[in-house]
């Protein structure tokens, strides 16, 4: 698919020339003047992704100022992990990001392996790659439904989330868990693939491609979708560095950065991952890029299924995990989730519990600084579409 979207470059400084007074780079809004209305979107709002709130000042239909409010999902994972043994962290970490839990599991187990100096066997690495790539597919399917749903096209959401459910079935076969898998543990993975898994996965890939063909025809080629998404929320290349934008959001603005290619982890170095970029940077370019990335993920899963070794150990020789003491040290492990760089910073002090674990979610900047910047000057009817097109995931922001 070629780059269909064309939109004019707009600087990332919001255009506030229409509004009367500015002080310290912020508009002074006088609610008493009856020119502006304060409008809360969320946490109870069907258009807001997850459980977060956006406090808007609107002038008519146009957003003058936006402010995000976080913390509705704060569970203090990092504090709790300081009280848990290393192996007890695993039920917790996968709950940090609900649509795509495996990236968390991978990062934490890789951080522990890095600190303890453990080599993971070949087959386990392949299984991890498969798991990670499948979870990317699940997350993208959910996103696709959300993006269409935010523009009032419910049918796409029904189809793709229904399809995601079949991928969850595959996860269930593979790991025993539907949403939360806890598949990767330090030193390897828990289980091998069940019998007949490969055939079922290949069948599902074919079905998913059929569905995506329909989605492309109804959603991406739709004139209304194009007219609404093109030119919405343009991220300029300068903004990428300034705001720490990562993942598809950055790649849609021309930044060639994919951790799977630049810092290959598990087995991505041996796979043919292509760098997908676009230079437009608006919401439609992001949607298109994610759509292409989804196709690439399907390709990758096919390739991985062919290349997984049939036998071999799936776990390294591990010490007793129940009172496993990791030598003191600090590390940062990152992986490419569907939203971008997802990393874990782990500090160990030599005891059987981590000293500090920090989860760097990709939407940390996307949903706060970037959203507040991009939401200005758009219509309130586009806010939901903008939030979904940034692919924000509140639980990984407040953890």
């Amino acid at each position: 698919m070629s780059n269909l979207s064309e939109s004019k470059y707009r600087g990332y400084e919001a255009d506030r020339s229409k509004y009367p007074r500015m002080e310290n780079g912020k508009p002074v809004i006088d609610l008493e003047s009856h020119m502006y209305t304060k409008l809360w979107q969320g946490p109870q709002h069907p258009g807001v992704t997850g459980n977060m709130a956006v406090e808007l000042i609107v002038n008519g239909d146009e957003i003058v100022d936006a402010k995000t409010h976080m913390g509705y999902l704060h569970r203090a994972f990092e504090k709790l992990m300081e009280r848990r043994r290393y192996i007890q962290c695993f039920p917790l970490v996968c709950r940090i990001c609900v649509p795509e839990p495996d990236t968390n599991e991978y990062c934490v187990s890789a951080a522990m392996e890095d600190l303890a100096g453990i080599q993971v066997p070949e087959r386990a690495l392949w299984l991890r790659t498969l798991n990670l790539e499948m979870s990317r597919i699940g997350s993208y399917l959910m996103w696709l439904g959300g993006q269409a749903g935010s523009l009032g096209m419910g049918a796409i959401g029904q189809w793709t989330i229904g399809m995601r459910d079949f991928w969850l079935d595959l996860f269930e076969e593979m790991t025993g868990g539907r949403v939360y898998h806890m598949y990767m543990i330090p030193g390897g993975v828990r289980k091998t693939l069940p019998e007949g898994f490969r055939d079922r996965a290949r069948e599902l890939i074919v079905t998913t491609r059929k569905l995506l063909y329909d989605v492309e025809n109804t959603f991406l080629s739709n004139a209304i979708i194009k007219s609404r998404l093109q030119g919405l929320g343009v991220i300029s290349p300068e903004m990428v560095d300034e705001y720490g934008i990562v993942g598809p959001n950055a790649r849609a603005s021309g930044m060639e950065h994919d951790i799977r290619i630049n810092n290959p982890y598990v087995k991505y170095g041996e796979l043919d991952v292509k760098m997908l970029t676009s230079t437009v940077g608006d919401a439609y370019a992001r949607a298109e890029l994610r759509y292409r990335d989804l196709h690439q993920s399907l390709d990758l899963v096919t390739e991985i299924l062919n290349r997984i070794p049939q036998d071999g150990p799936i776990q390294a020789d591990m010490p007793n995990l129940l009172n496993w003491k990791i030598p003191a040290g600090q590390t940062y492990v990152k992986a490419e989730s569907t939203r971008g760089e997802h990393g874990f910073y782990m500090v160990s002090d030599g005891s059987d519990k981590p000293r500090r674990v920090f989860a760097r979610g990709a939407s940390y900047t996307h949903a706060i600084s970037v959203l507040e910047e991009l939401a200005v000057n758009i219509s309130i009817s586009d806010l939901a579409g903008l939030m979904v097109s940034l692919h924000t995931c509140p639980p990984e922001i407040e953890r």
Partner: protein
Amino acid sequence: MNRKHIDEIEKQMKLANEGLPEEERKFFADVIPTRVDPFNKYWEQFLNWARSRSLWMLAFGTGCGSTELRPLMTSRFDMARFGIFPRPTPRQASVFVVGGYASIKTIKRIIRSYEQMQGPKYVIALGSCTINGGMYYDSYNTINRLDYYIPVDVYIAGCMPRPEALIAGFNRLKEKIVAGECEGMNEYTDKFDWFKKNQKEIIKDWNMPDYNW
């Protein structure tokens, strides 16, 4: 409005706003809801039958359990065939599905939304974390028992419960509604002071925007 009536209202206001600083009182629902008993036994049975077949769920994803509501709404599990629909505003909803753990900031909104719902209203609490805290039992920011803050009709255990379990929970709720056992609205009225005491113990900052949903 006679003097006695005004006294009554003032007494109620004093009860509910107790222990709050002056500037925060206006943010707080300060009138005890009225208890409304069923009108007639047989008529109520008919209404309950209709209510159980048309459950309007408040679309408020309070926790990670709401991820499983999405498959439930969509083509794989399709809750619409049981007469369950999402409604975007609490004024029109009759079922509140609390999706998992409730952080302090969220439980404030949960209480607000619950109070805005028009009775009879039902609460389904989803996930272990609403029952006893689940794996967040020692977290400083999540509550442990939901039934201390709002009355709960059905608990669904699991972390997180599968869509099948949710359907089973909804069916249990329907049975309870038809049997006339779901009087959570009146329970909230009767034990209003107790609920409010518990709520005030954890929620220190009652400031909220006027219409936060």
